[in-house]
């Protein structure tokens, strides 16, 4: 489905330059009213419907919950690529890609770290992902 439009997934930035150490990090959000945490940032809290979502910078390291090496991936991304769910210490789970030459190195629950890469570009030349995680 190469005609799929990919609008901005969030109207707030989810990949930021951390002024403290000048390196990028991911940013989710936290509800100022009930504490619900969401990634990527959203405008309304899915728990209490409050609209006071505040930026929540995320750790750079998370745990690899599960992963798969796609030989044949989603048509609008192409392939092959390694997809994964990463569990972050802040309590949110992130779907992303893994940057590793040999997927045989990966195991469930291993620590992985944020790596800002050359954007993953699909067959239409569109950027689909600006970051990955790596062991």
């Amino acid at each position: 489905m190469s005609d799929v439009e990919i609008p901005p997934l969030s109207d707030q930035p989810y990949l930021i330059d951390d002024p403290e150490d000048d390196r990028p990090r991911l940013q989710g959000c936290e509800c100022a009213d009930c504490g619900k945490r969401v990634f990527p940032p959203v405008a309304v809290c899915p728990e209490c419907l409050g609209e006071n979502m505040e930026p929540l910078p995320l750790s750079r390291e998370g745990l690899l919950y599960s992963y798969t090496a796609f030989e044949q991936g989603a048509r609008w991304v192409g392939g092959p690529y390694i997809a994964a769910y990463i569990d972050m210490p802040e309590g949110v789970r992130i779907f992303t890609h893994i940057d590793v030459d040999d997927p045989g190195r990966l195991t469930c629950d291993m620590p992985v770290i944020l790596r800002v890469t050359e954007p993953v570009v699909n067959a239409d030349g569109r950027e689909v992902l600006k970051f990955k995680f790596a062991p």
Partner: protein
Amino acid sequence: MRDVSIIGTGMMRFGKHLDKGLVELAWPVVKEAIAEAGVEKEDIGIAFCGTVGSAGIMAGQSILKTLGMTGIPIANVEGACSSSGIAVRLAWMAIRAGECDVALAIGADKMNRTGPRHAPDHGEDWDMAYGLAMHGLYAMRARRYMNDYGITEEQLSSVSVKAHKLGAKNEFAHIQKEVTLEEVMTSRMIADPLRLWHCCPVSDGAAAVVLAADDVAKKVCDKPVKIVASVQHSGKYMTGFRDMTMPEVTQRTAKEIYEKAGLGPEDLDLVEFHDAFTINELMYADAIGLSKPGEGVRLLEEGESTVGGRIPINPSGGLLSRGHPIGPTGAAQIVEVTRQLQGRGGARQVEGAKVGLTHVTGGGVSGLDHGACTMHVLAV
């Protein structure tokens, strides 16, 4: 509220039907279901068509006008793979509510026209936009399940061997041939650990079910099959961690349907569930309560989940063999269980079956276990 029974079924062989349009595929199964029901087409008071829109909008109207059946309320229902399971449920609800006495549920789609459609492709869904195709979602479940419970690739592959052994006896199956363990284990990798033979084929097809209020059903049908309970849910939105080896929407729907039906997994004679990939058979057996968590594989290895065993799972060969045209899958399961309970299961008949369960999930949405899950308990 009134009890509702299934009085007519229509089914075709799923497969790659490139030479036919959706209407052409679907009208014969609707005609068959009405003929089998012993009612006139004018008796149908409402119709629901489960489809993911592979032939555009207004599928139900297009199919039914071919049989001169428009003029009644017709609703097209989309719930990804659960679409026609939901259509049957809505028909059941309409009769129970007294809207009409007889209702029709159809499922129809052509996946070879659009490619599989089972998740939001509007670009606003994070997981989907970044490349989480459905086979990858199940591959990640498989990875975690195998990790947590020590399941081997050989064990996972034997699900496919069993499914195709049964599917080889099903005249409606897309794939009607047996497959060896070696063939499964050496087939092309799709999304590690899932290989080609771990995945259902991309199919086209249609299925239909006619339902009636019990008082009508008894008059027109020799062997109506009662819908004992029907439950549908959407997955809960979870932004945090969730156990992907125990799909919450299936577990929750199963718990509720057992309560409503007044029975438990031990009372079932057969199950048709959503085995789009091999891992599903192990994971869903656990979630539906046929096995303890992590022990679904035992049913397989001890021969309990095949025809002749204690609890046959997918005697039709399931989605792995019958195919998965998305929209019609839920209705096809209900057709299979209905005919089994009527003793019309042919070479794959589960002897003496009185109570059957169908289960179909649907749709990958970020943060949800699944977009939809629909279950029915049928009995004679």
